[in-house]
């Protein structure tokens, strides 16, 4: 419409004069040095968990030629992380340019002060609460559910978008559902699978492990073969048509050939896959019929699908063994980017376009299946292989994104890699013989983490080859890494030191109850929840609060800070806690009031135990960490800074994550938000 008006005006002398005058005015307003946006390019490569000490070692060893090339053209420094240094918290600092008091993500998990129960901090699924009850288990839902992103604060790409900067945000954590904006974005860490969980695999086997029911993050399904055929179902989302919330299932039939060590797997209505023992399939569609076989009878299927009552996911299958015992692993069923049951991108159809062009890909926030390794379904080699497939896929997408970006005149691109973080968590015991979980088997894979560094170096090489001289290239990580040798049961210490009272202090009760069920809240003053959070049971805030807000609370905090920093591990003689951060000191912003009262910064080689994080009370205060999850970063923040490498000078001597946010906006000449606390590093 605008261009039409301009074309018409060309034929009128008055119009020409107007245009000339207007053009002159615009030219004057946009003279050099003024605020007109400069058409520049910046790419930020986010490498979750890249540790500066490890990076320096690998640089010195000559493994990282492209990093060296990038550093030679600019600078390499450490990047201050968040308190606590947990990924969702750290990335939210980066996204919003604020500390947790501004974005309301203080830990992986928060607690409801009414119930003291933990919940996932980053997003919340809200189902439809209105329905009409029908016969049997049927109901008719009168509305759809929704998922809410619990991160507060404005994302930096919303500012870029408002400033007209073409922006692409690829898989940034703590962004599910993706923040509404015109920018192209794909949701990252926090994106659930089709069950609505962070990732639940399915394992079909004729020989379930004894502790199958205790495996978290996966479902083990016992099957049997009748004349070569077994049947089962891949669990899916809760069925909104079931009053009991019964899960929908995708039927699966398995035909095995024991002599040839092969199997044919038939999914749903007929998708067929043939695998040999040890092979992975490509992505295959997994269809759930809400009125289907497992819910309400297979005969309804043909009617249900056209009514839109089928939802689609995708999965990859891995045939672990055919005989004598059969084992088939199915990845957590992903939201299909080509046909998303929930939006995973902005615009909604961007994931569809990507999928059409580049093939299907993992949409789950954390696709490396550490749960299958921890649950004993994968051995180390299998986990490394699966995580390697994730990295291969991410590299393919990265190369495509970078090549697209190279064709753009200007704009901003963020791209995220999760592999280093996940592999270092799981495989620290592979290159550290001193780790309690290191053994002959794990040490066979001593090069696994350095190999990830090398792959990420290749990624930086791609960016340099395509963009050097044309764009500002930023490589950063949200935090570093440390070994995790010893776990501390902080809640047990609180209980044994009179800060927390148990209803039943017997050993049996302590070891069997979870989620704080054994806590006598009316006689409790403090409790730990999450990996680093420590709460005072404040009267008027917590349901059964016992400590008065104000002076009494502050005195208790002071007392705990002193005592916690003096806790000595009787086995090692080391102090387990390096620092205790008082929220009143380190958080600012509208949501600081929801923070834990303290954050525990563990010392090197220590971390809070998973049991304590979820409200359990083992007898001992300390234990060896013999689990597969052997490296971590949820310790004192100054022990695990991230990295920052830029192909230009960095003037800020101690940059932190939220400084990078201000840097991006200032780079494009966009004023930072009023709540942002950082300053440009350039």
């Amino acid at each position: 419409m605008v261009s039409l008006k301009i074309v018409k005006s060309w034929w009128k002398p008055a119009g020409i004069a107007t245009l000339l005058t207007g053009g002159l005015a615009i030219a004057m307003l946009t003279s050099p040095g003024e605020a007109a946006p400069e058409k520049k390019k910046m790419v930020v490569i986010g490498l979750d968990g890249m540790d500066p000490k490890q990076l320096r070692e690998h640089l010195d060893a000559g493994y990282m030629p492209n990093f060296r090339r990038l550093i030679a053209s600019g600078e390499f420094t450490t990047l201050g992380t968040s308190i606590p240094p947990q990924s969702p918290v750290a990335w939210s600092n980066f996204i919003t340019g604020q500390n947790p008091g501004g974005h309301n993500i203080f830990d992986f998990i928060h607690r409801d002060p009414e119930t003291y129960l933990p919940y996932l901090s980053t997003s919340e699924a809200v189902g439809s609460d209105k329905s009409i009850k029908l016969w049997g288990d049927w109901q008719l839902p009168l509305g759809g559910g929704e998922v809410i992103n619990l991160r507060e604060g404005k994302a930096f790409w919303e500012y870029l978008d408002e400033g007209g900067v073409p922006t692409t945000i690829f898989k940034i954590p703590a962004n599910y559902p993706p923040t509404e904006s015109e920018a192209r974005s794909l949701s990252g860490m926090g994106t659930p699978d089709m069950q609505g969980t962070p990732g639940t695999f399915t394992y079909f086997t004729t020989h379930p492990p004894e502790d199958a029911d205790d495996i978290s993050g996966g479902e083990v399904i016992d099957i049997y073969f009748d004349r070569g055929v077994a049947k089962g179902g891949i669990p899916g989302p809760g069925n909104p048509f079931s009053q009991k919330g019964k899960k929908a299932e995708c039927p699966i039939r398995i035909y095995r050939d024991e002599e040839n060590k092969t199997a044919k797997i038939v999914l749903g209505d007929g998708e067929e896959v043939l695998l040999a023992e040890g092979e992975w399939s490509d992505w295959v569609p997994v269809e759930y019929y809400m009125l289907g076989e497992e819910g309400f009878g297979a005969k309804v299927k043909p009617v249900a699908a056209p009514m839109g009552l089928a939802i689609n996911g995708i999965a990859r299958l891995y045939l672990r063994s055919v005989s004598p015992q059969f084992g088939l692993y199915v990845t957590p069923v992903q939201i299909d980017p080509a046909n998303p049951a929930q939006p995973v991108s902005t615009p909604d159809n961007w994931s569809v376009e990507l999928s059409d062009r580049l093939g299907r890909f993992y949409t789950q926030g954390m696709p490396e299946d550490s749960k299958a390794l921890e649950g004993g379904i994968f051995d180390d080699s299998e986990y490394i292989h699966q995580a390697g497939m994730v990295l291969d896929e991410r590299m393919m997408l990265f190369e495509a994104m970078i090549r697209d970006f190279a064709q753009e005149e200007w704009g901003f691109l963020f791209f995220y890699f999760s592999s280093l973080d996940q592999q270092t968590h799981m495989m620290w015991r592979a290159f550290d013989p001193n780790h309690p979980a290191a053994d002959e088997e794990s040490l066979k894979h001593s090069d696994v983490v350095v190999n990830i560094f090398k792959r990420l170096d290749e990624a930086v090489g791609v960016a340099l080859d395509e963009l050097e001289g044309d764009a500002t290239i930023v490589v950063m990580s949200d935090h570093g890494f440390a070994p995790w040798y010893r776990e501390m049961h902080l809640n047990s210490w609180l209980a044994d030191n009179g800060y927390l009272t148990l209803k039943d202090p017997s050993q049996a009760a302590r070891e069997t109850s979870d989620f704080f069920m054994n806590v006598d809240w009316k006689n409790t003053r403090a409790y730990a929840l999450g990996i680093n959070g420590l709460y005072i049971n404040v009267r008027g805030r917590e349901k059964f609060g016992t400590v008065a807000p104000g002076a009494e609370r502050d005195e208790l905090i002071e007392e705990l800070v002193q005592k916690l920093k003096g806790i000595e591990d009787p086995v090692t003689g080391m102090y387990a806690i390096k620092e205790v951060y008082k929220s009143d000191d380190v958080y600012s912003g509208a949501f600081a009031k929801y923070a834990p009262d303290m954050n525990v910064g563990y010392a090197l080689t220590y971390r809070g135990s998973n049991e304590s994080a979820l409200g359990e009370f083992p007898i001992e205060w300390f234990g060896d960490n013999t689990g597969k999850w052997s490296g971590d970063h949820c310790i004192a923040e100054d022990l695990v800074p991230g990295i920052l490498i830029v192909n230009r000078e960095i003037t800020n001597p101690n940059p932190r994550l939220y400084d990078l946010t201000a840097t991006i906006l200032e780079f494009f000449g966009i004023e930072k938000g009023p709540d942002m606390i950082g300053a440009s590093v350039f």
Partner: protein
Amino acid sequence: MWPIVKAVTAFFDGLIGLFGGMHPFVGLSVVSILTGAVMLVVWKFTSNQKAIAAAKSKISAYIYEIRIFQEDMGLQMAAQRKAFLANMKYLSLAVPPLIVVLLPVVAILVQLDVRYERRPLLPGESTLLKVMVSESVDPGDVTLEVPAGIAISALPVRIPREHEVDWRLRAENEGEYDLQITVAGETVTKRIVVGDKITKIAEGRDQAGILAVWLAPAEKPIPKGSAFQAISFQYPDRDTKAWGYSLHWLLVFFVVSVLFGFAIKGVVGVEV
């Protein structure tokens, strides 16, 4: 019957092959235009043109009547009844020519379906070959030979209770290949196509009857009484885009043939 089907298929091979190097919708549009033109002529000579013209005139007249006498409810109702009856008459006049054109149109649609509904495999892609045999044969005895250009990428899965044996094949090079499948001294072939050109492809080959061969014209049926019941694999769906949008070939065919038919009906002098 097969020689006739084969001749018709060869005709379409030749016609669509003329546009082999062009966008898939070029050949499809030419077939659609020719179909529209031929069907229009067939319609002309198989329908009662005068009666159709009269029925259409009556419908127009009654519609005018409805518009003109809007205040007279009695006349309105009568005109609507007459328009409805005239419409029924018109539809009844359309039935004989529709029956005449239906069979050739179905045959054309089948010819287009085997070319545009799915696409050949691309090098690197895999498919699952499923061989169904009669109850008298052990599926474990079935053997498969593949030519260079196709690879067997896993040992077969033999499923005696289903009388079935499955192989996973991987396309390696472009070309048209015949797989050789043998059991009990009998060998049959199954054509597999690799490449990106528009060509006829058949997912299945079975013991089709005389009429059914019209619905599976890309490959000769398996002889009756064979030890093989059916041989099949899947080709990927063809996703053809025009101006950035995926368009199903059936939509293109109907829109182009109908629009062209309506465009030239005045020239040909046909009442539709």
